[in-house]
């Protein structure tokens, strides 16, 4: 079945692209704010539903809702962050655990709200790209690349590039990196910690919400989709090394490729067993992520 090899690789990378969209905002949030947001899946889900609502109201292509979704959720994240900060900076209890449980509570509340407002059924976002695919046929070599999945990958890479630019080439990025490295020192240097933190969280929520629109278009959306997405966000980010943004694409593609190869060449029944075991194994061998650059 060597004939399927190129397709297996492409499918794996595209699948990794989906994981990348889910994990990239989350990695930013952890790297800078040191918060494990249990609600990342729910942010994605809510973004998908807002995209759906926008599409149904205005009868426009769902991908056009992306800027609107980003702005709305970035604002929500910006406003929510100070609450999170208070939890994180508590003098009692363990801040990391507290933030985790706080966001877990939020996730439950979001899920319940979505179930109440949007119901239990599964929906799909249909865009102009939904059915197209690129076909390459060259003798016995062939490849099918679904356009919407490719768009997801392009989106993910674009966000990474923009984030990279933002972090490395702007003053804002400098402030963010300072806060990530050492909050108190950054404050002493004149960085407005509160605003920077709120901005980063807003950025993360906005990105995650946009991801929701893509997931709704590539796969489907329903009010209970959050936990599975959070799971993959955590795994990718931990595999990459928490806080190490550059490792996220590699970890995403690795997980996507493992799945793809397993499904095509091995017994699909065991794919998730293999995946979780591999993840667990890598963590044991390299406790701070696969590049050993995690915090």
């Amino acid at each position, binding site marked *: 079945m060597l004939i399927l090899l190129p397709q297996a690789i492409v499918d794996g990378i595209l699948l990794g692209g989906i994981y990348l969209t889910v994990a990239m905002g989350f990695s930013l949030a952890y790297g800078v704010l040191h918060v494990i947001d249990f609600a990342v899946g729910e942010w994605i889900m809510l973004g998908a539903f807002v995209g759906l609502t926008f599409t149904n109201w205005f009868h426009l292509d769902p991908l056009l809702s992306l800027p609107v979704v980003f702005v709305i959720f970035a604002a929500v994240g910006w406003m929510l962050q100070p609450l999170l900060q208070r*939890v994180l900076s508590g003098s009692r209890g363990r801040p990391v655990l507290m933030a985790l449980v706080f966001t877990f509570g939020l996730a439950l509340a979001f899920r*319940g709200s979505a179930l109440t407002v949007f119901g239990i059924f599964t929906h799909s976002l249909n865009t102009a790209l939904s059915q197209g695919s690129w076909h390459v046929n060259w003798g016995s070599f062939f490849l099918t690349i679904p356009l919407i999945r490719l768009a997801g990958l392009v989106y993910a890479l674009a966000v990474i590039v923009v984030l990279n630019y933002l972090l490395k080439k702007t003053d804002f990025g400098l402030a963010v990196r300072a806060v990530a490295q050492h909050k108190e020192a950054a404050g002493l240097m004149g960085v407005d910690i509160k605003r920077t933190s709120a901005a980063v969280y807003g950025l993360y929520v906005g990105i995650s919400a946009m991801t929701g629109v893509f997931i709704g278009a590539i796969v489907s959306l329903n009010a209970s989709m959050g936990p599975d997405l959070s799971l993959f966000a955590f795994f990718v980010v931990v595999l990459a090394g928490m806080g190490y943004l550059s490792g996220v694409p590699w970890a995403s593609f690795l997980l996507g490729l493992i799945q793809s190869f397993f499904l095509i060449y091995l017994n699909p029944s065991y794919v998730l067993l293999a995946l979780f075991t591999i993840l667990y194994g890598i963590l044991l061998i390299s*406790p701070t992520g696969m590049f050993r650059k995690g915090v």
Partner: protein
Amino acid sequence: MRGLPAWLWILLVIAGVGLVPVVMTDAFFLRLFTEALMWIGLAITWDLMAGYVGYLNFGHGVSFGVGAYATALLIVNAGWPFEPAAALGGVAAGLVALISGWPTLRLRGAYFAIGTWALNRAVMQLALVLDITGGADGMRLPAFLRPQFFSWVMLGVVGATFLVLWLLLEQAPFGLKLKAIREDESGSLAIGLNPAKLKLQAYVLSAVPAGIIGGVYAYWITFIDPASTLGDLVTDQAVVMAIFGGLGTLIGPVIGALLLFAFKTYFWAYLSDYQVLYLIILGLAIAATVFFLPDGFWGTVTRRREGRRALQKGMALAHFPEK
């Protein structure tokens, strides 16, 4: 009253609670009674790792599930009677904890949390793909439906767990040593502790009772499958209950478990049309508790009392200054 040692007090309370199934024989009440005890057991064992050692075990459900399946396999496939099967369920869970704990406990913080979660998911997948566990179809156990029996068994298991944990954590130095690890793991080496060994002991200690509880659960409900025994729900509920109550104490999770269980059951029994509201209310309640009462209900109460006592002492000293 004051002269009674703590452990005797605990025994008396357990005995007192044990009288409840004699008086209240309604089957549904006893089912709730048993389930409440089950959650108390799961919450306090989780708190052992989270509150005392400071390690968030998101794979606590593995111990429960391994215990449930081991017990089920022994009863159904090997014809064992219930009691030894459940006991061996605990042993099986302990063995899994021993083997997986040794490498896993090298992970810290978030990595440990997510690593244990990965392990939990892997074990669930294993239960789904193996034939011997029945896969997705689960396993059916012979029906032994005696509500009083299970109430007492669960009380016995959870009560004994509480007593043992009390003795080890609050009376013996073990608890202090664990807390030392929680506060400063590298520092604890400097004072001569062996964190690796202590952590592993705590990890196994939290796994064995959870495994026995899982075994009791299997025989009690008569049907187990991967989703109900190895899913996230078991761990998630234990976590929330322990947090509600207050980490780092034993009574905290007990109270948290009772509160949350009462709330959940009330909603389920009387407001089942509004089950989605339950999620919203629960979520907001959890967030609010973390926000306003990071020590949990019981933790905040104890702190306040400690604070008041300290204040009283201080004021007493102020009135009678040392000469």
